[in-house]
Every structure is written in C-alpha cells, then in structure tokens.
C-alpha cells in the first residue's frame, strides 16, 4: 500500500479513536439513563420557577367570585386565563387581606375593551361552523368597533365591564 494512503488511514483511525474517547469523556453523565437523551434535562426543567397554580386554588379565598362565575357564561374559563399567573399571589396574598396588595402580588385585571377582545373580537380565522342543537363552546364574536363603542362626549359607558360583569357576563 502506498505510503500516503497508509498515513491517511492512520489519521482517520486516530480521528475515530479520538472521537470514541471524546464521546466517553464528553457525553453528559446522565445521557442514556432513561433513553437516548440527557436524563438530567428532566430534572433541570423541574427547577424552573413556576408561575401558574392549579385551577381550584383561587377558590380557597375567593369563594364568592367562583360561585358567581360558575353560574355564568364564563364558567368554563379558569381564573388565570384572565388574571394571569397567580401562584405567588395565592401563596402570599393572605397576609394582605383587606389591605392594598404589594405590586409583586397584584394580578392583572383585564378590564379594558381590548382585553375582552382577545377572545371576543370578530375574526375571520376563528371557527365559523355553528352547531344549532349542541350547546357549543364557541366563543361569541362581536365587532369591538361596533358593539357599544365608547362615546366620549356623552359620557356613556365605555368599557365592556361597565355593562357586563366579567365573572358573569
């Protein structure tokens, strides 16, 4: 075999051996424990801070809101859908009963027209099919610009929540 081919083959051999050694050394230690992936990735993900809580945890302190909501059209919506992640709030709000909440525990109160529009604004891309007989979960669509728009001069009600109770629309 010619000299240069021999050299080339040895270089490749060295490379492959090096690769295998590196693979042993560099492979993350938990790799392959549970499958072809780094098992620690699962653990690391559990270390991420949580933001949301379970649906029922709000009920503990806000029974009346829950009761109100359960009777209305919004009964299927979870509180956090509108108010945002509430884990911190539900853990620490207790001590501030009757007082002003500190900013870090305050939740969003989506009372503006655009907030309701997130779900209710008319949009061609949303479901168009209507089931007559079935009690649908389809969200009713209105046109924000047309449905009782605010009239600044006449001092008429402007926000959706002036007419609709957000918890029992």
């Amino acid at each position, binding site marked *: 075999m010619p000299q240069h081919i021999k050299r080339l083959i040895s270089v490749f051999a060295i490379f492959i051996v090096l690769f295998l050694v590196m693979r042993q050394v560099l492979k993350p230690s938990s790799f392959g424990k549970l499958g*072809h992936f780094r098992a620690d990735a699962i653990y690391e993900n559990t270390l991420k801070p949580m933001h949301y809580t379970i649906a029922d945890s709000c009920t503990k302190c806000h029974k009346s809101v829950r009761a109100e909501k359960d009777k209305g059209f919004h009964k299927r919506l979870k509180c956090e859908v509108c108010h945002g992640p509430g884990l911190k709030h539900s853990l620490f709000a207790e001590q501030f009963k009757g007082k002003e909440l500190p900013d870090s525990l305050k939740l969003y109160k989506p009372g503006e027209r655009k907030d309701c529009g*997130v779900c209710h604004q008319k*949009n061609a891309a949303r*479901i168009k099919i209507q089931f007559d007989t079935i009690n649908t979960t389809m969200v009713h669509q209105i046109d924000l610009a047309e449905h009782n728009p605010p009239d600044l001069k006449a001092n008429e009600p402007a926000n959706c929540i002036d007419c609709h109770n957000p918890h029992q629309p």
Partner: protein
Amino acid sequence: MEDHLQNLYEVLSKVEGYVYPNEIELNWSILIVLYPYITGLVAGAFILASLERIFKIKVLKPTYGIALLTAFSFMLVATMPLVSHLGKPLRAYEIMITPHSSSAMAIFGFVYLWYLMVVLFLEIWFDYRRDMVIWGNESKGVKRFLYKLLSLWTTDISPKAVALDDRIGYIVTVIGIPSAFLLHGYVGFIFGSIKANPWWSTVLMPVIFLFSAMVSGIALVMLIYIVLTKVRKQLIDMECLDTIAKYLFYILVIDFALEGLDQIHRIYVAEESFEALHKLVFGKLFYTLFIYQGLLGTVVPLLTLGTLQFYKPKASIRKIIYIILPVLVLMGIFFMRWNVVIGGQLFSKSFYGYTTFKTGLIGMEGYLMAATWLIIPFLILSFLLWLLPPWNKIETSHE
C-alpha cells in the same frame, strides 16, 4: 403584574385569530432559515463540481476547484446557525457525539460527519495532494508547514501515486453525489416529515429542497467565479459560463416544475388546511413568496436563461446578465427557505389564526448574527483560495 404576562398580552394583541400560546412565538428563527440555505449551497456547489469530474463536462474545468472549496467552506459553517440558534454553545458538540438513527434531528451527526469528512475532505485532499507536496517544497515558513501538515508529510508524487489519487478521488466523487443528495434531501426531510404542519408535510419536500439547493449552489459558484476572475484580472471563460448557465436553466426548470406541482397538488386536494394556507400565502407571505421567490427569484431568471438558449447577445451583455442572475437566484432561494421555515410557523395548526414574525438586528438570533454566518464562509473561502489556489494546480485531466 409580572413581566412575562405583560409580554403575553402584548403578543396576543399582535396575533390574528386564535393561536395556541405555544405557537405564538416563532421558535425557528432566521438562523433556521440560514441552515438549509447554507447546506443547500454546499450540496449545489458540490454537484456542480461533480458535473465536471464524473460527467466529464470539460468546459466546466475552471470552476471545479472553486466549487469544491466553496462547498467545503460553507460546510464548515453549516452547523453554526444551529449552534447559535440553540443558544448553548458549550453543549453544541453533543449533537455530534450522540447521533441516533431514530430521529431526523439526532441523525444529523452522522450525515454531517459523513459528508464533511468522508466526501468533501477526502475529495479535496486527493485532488490537492500532489500540489501540496510540490508547494510545500517550494514555499517557506508557516505556509510550508501548513502544506506539509495538510499533505501529512507525504512525498510520493510518482505518476503511479498520482494516478491512484485520481482514481480514489473519482470514487469518492461517485460516492459523493448520492451523499450530497442525501445531505440536502435530509434537510428537506426534516420539514417534509412533520405531519402536523400542512405547509411542510409533503413527500416532495426533500426533492424540492434538493433541486433548489442545486440551483443556489450553481448560482453561487457562478458568481464567485466571475468575481474571482475579475479580481485576478484574468479573462472570463465565456464558454464555461454559458455552460453553467445552461445547467442552471435546466435545473431551475425542474425546480420550478416541482414547486409548481406541489402547489397545484395542494390547491387541487384542498384539504381542511387549504383556507388557512390560502390566507397565509396572500397575506403575510405575499411579498416573499410571489415577488421575491416567485417573480424575481424564479420567473425572471427562467425567462432570461431560457432566452439565452436561443438567442445569444454580445459577450459583454451576457457577462452582466451572468452577474445579475445569480444574485437574483440566490435571493430567490433564500426566500424559498424563508417561506418554508418562517411561513410554516406563521399560522396556527388549529387553522384559526396567524402570528407574526419579528426579529431584531442584534442578539443571538438577530439579523447581524445571521449576516455573520453568511460572511464567515467567504472569509474561509478566501483563506482556502489563498492556500490552495486551484489556478496554480498542475494541469491534470481527470480520467
């Protein structure tokens, strides 16, 4: 109120219709557009090189070395957009050391190593070995060391050894063609195999990617050849350019037909996703799809190249055409990748809404980063052309 909630409301006001929260943000950004673009350039440039070598199209000789080195420089950078996209540079090598055949993503290590080491590296090595030995003896200092290192301190340049190099190089190229097809077909496969995405999921995807890769690679080599010859103040070989243009035309026709077929199929079967895609194509993708990719990137080059097959204007005019066309084609293919990657993420997979794509100038996933990964291959190429100038090689006719 917490920051990320503020952000959520902010982005929600930018989406149209209903989009699931996990689809609001486009996870595959401009860097993932670059990845198939760059690998496409690699595969395309390599295939142009093999046209000369395997199919013995001798007029393409002036571009053979350039095409190979171009493919190599872009291949070295091909993974970098992925690495900077993933944002964990310290863990980036893991994808290379833990390849696996069960996942299209994890098999990347095999595909990449095979193509880079076994095909491109070997072909260039065998092609240049004799010249490196000679140059190594002629030059001094660092350059001498580099040549010696690269030629592994071999000295045998007897006709017998050179003939052997040539034969092995030929075999490697023969293996290389299906490998190039595999490499880029693979990139298309990643998209085509995603069943849940009607914009991507088509068996034609690998083939479309392949032909668009050839188109872009050929256009790139054409452009580099013209620029290089101008820089070196040499005469441009018009016959060579005309031949490249001819092949560009053929492959562009196939590419156009395939993509047209894909769209016609989509329109004809009109699955439930059709309406959503229709809105996407005429809305957010209108400019990138119809103007940049379709009109400027495909139709104009197609018509011009088609005309050139029948009517040949003066060489000086052809030269200008051959500078403008590759630029248009390269842009068109870039937007083809854009339309696939970004377009496929713009609509909600429930077909009820659309999100928007915004990327900044700076940052790990910004335009500057993307530009960097497009410029670096050219720097590598300049270095390689300085070290291994194909025009200084001893004339060999590949037999």
